[in-house]
């Protein structure tokens, strides 16, 4: 609990390097594009006027172009994902903040506390750099994104049965799902699940920024989060060294 009396004196955690922040926004743009072009692919319509049957091809906003945009954004998403994996080894917080540490006591305490806070039963929750609910959500959404990349490139690659993507992903994925029809279906369903995540995610970010005042929103732009002096986050270990955390706690 953060008591009211403590006057403003914050210390800052530098969590996200510029690379990670840029990645986050690039990924956001890619998924934004992928989602809406994907919906169009699932249920296309013609935008433009058809004067004669061969006229439309390549001129108007049509299936071919939308698919091209979808695949281009798909590549952006893929390289972004690989880059994010690479970032995991460059900075402590880039790795640990994505891991739901269910084996830690504070993880479960945090879940209940944050839930009570979100349901307005409590006015604040234990200090955390990234709360367990958010961790779990980010972890799973990264898996969903990986799933979209996997199924997407499998479908994409199979138009060239001897090409790289067909050999690397396509053939065994097809055998696993039994049929490409299923691939389309699950690719479509997961697209919606990601969209629902984004809605809640964006709301939670604003909520935490305005209500919990953790500098949440700015963290993905400036890379920094603020905590009031004397209230060390339980997951301090994930972003700073043990000594640093002890020092902040005032134990040394």
């Amino acid at each position, binding site marked *: 609990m953060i008591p009211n009396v403590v006057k403003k004196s914050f210390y800052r955690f530098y969590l996200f390097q510029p690379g990670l922040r840029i990645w986050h926004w690039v990924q956001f743009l890619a998924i934004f594009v992928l989602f809406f072009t994907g919906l169009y692919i699932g249920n296309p319509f013609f935008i433009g006027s058809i004067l004669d049957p061969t006229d439309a091809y390549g001129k108007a906003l049509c299936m071919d172009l939308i698919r091209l945009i979808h695949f281009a954004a798909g590549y952006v998403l893929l390289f972004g994902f690989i880059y994010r994996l690479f970032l995991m080894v460059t900075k402590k917080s880039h790795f640990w903040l994505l891991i739901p540490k269910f084996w830690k006591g504070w993880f479960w305490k945090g879940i209940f506390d944050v839930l009570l806070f979100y349901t307005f039963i409590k006015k604040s929750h234990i200090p955390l750099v990234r709360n367990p609910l958010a961790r779990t959500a980010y972890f799973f959404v990264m898996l969903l994104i990986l799933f979209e990349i996997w199924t997407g490139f499998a479908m994409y690659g199979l138009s060239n049965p001897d090409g790289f993507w067909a050999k690397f992903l396509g053939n065994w994925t097809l055998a696993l799902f039994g049929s490409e029809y299923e691939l389309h279906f699950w690719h479509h369903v997961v697209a919606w699940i990601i969209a629902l995540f984004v809605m809640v995610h964006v709301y939670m970010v604003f909520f935490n920024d305005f209500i919990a005042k953790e500098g949440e929103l700015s963290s993905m732009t400036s890379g920094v989060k603020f905590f*009031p002096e004397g209230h060390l986050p339980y997951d301090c270990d994930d972003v700073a060294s043990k000594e640093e955390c002890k020092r902040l706690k005032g134990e040394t």
Partner: protein
Amino acid sequence: MGKTYWEAFKEAGISRREFLKFATYITGLMGLAPSMVPKVVEALETKERIPVIWLHGLECTGCTESFIRSNAPYASDLLLNVITLEYDETLPAAAGILYEENGKMVRSGLVGHLDKVVEEYKGKYILVYEGGVPLGNDGRYCIVAGRPYKEDVIELAKHAAVLMSVGTCASWGGIQAARPNPTHSVPVSDLVNKPLIKVPGCPPIPEVITGTILHLALFGMPPLDDQGRPKQFFGNRIHDTCYRRPFFNAGQFVEKPDDDAAKKGWCLYKIGCRGPTTYASCGNLRWFGGISYPIQSGAPCIGCADKNFWDKGPFFQREKGIVLPNVEVDADKVGVAAAAVTAGALAVHAIAAGIRHAGEKDDEH
């Protein structure tokens, strides 16, 4: 010792010239390059004709109907000259007891025609399966010559050189395996543990059946994909070989089976065409010697060569819906509804947050 193909041809009075034409023809049919013609001729001259045993299980015999309509080589040519079809329940003149008891005893414990063939060609024959295998009720849903079909399936596979499942029934279980699959019909591959080549389709294109058997007879196993289908016939989506593809790319779609766009021959994607997810040769080989295929006649592909195609939503709908209790709803509709509910819940939460945390200031922490 059996005869080579060339010997059999000579005996049948076929000229060398005809023989070479035939070799060239089947080279194309097997999906091989023209430079392979000499190899094919060599194989035809040196290899013995391969014996084939053709079994029938739970099915409609449509595959055989398709097979005997092979435009080229005429199925009769193939039967008589290229393979020796030693056993088949539907094609020979004799049937039933006359056929089965051509030997001394019948299959159920006794030795019949089939057993003689197996004995003679042990380890050499191609075993072709047509039809699914019902396991339910101890296999009693399909009894052939007094014995459950599933026992023949396993028994005969033991002595075969190579196995081949013709048609969707033998390859994926077939229509009778549709939910709830009352006979518990399964594909042959569930029961046997040997290299098996799958030629699905309901029925498969005749040239695909003959082309695959030819390849097996002359060169052994063709290259297979991860599901066991010959790549030369199942490597491409119908969608990627479809002559209506330009309309797909241009975004010109048939909205209803009888609309103006349908008359103009536009893409059938939106009325459920399974071309984008089905791997078969309909787009390039087409049917009846290349005359037409479903899409060309204006009907969306139903994906009959695809695994479990019978359970994949209504044929005239592009994608199956999400199954909710009692209804099946389009994924986009479910998505929009879920998004609306989420947005509503978040709005309520936001208002509640405003009330609950009213008056808090930054420095009150």
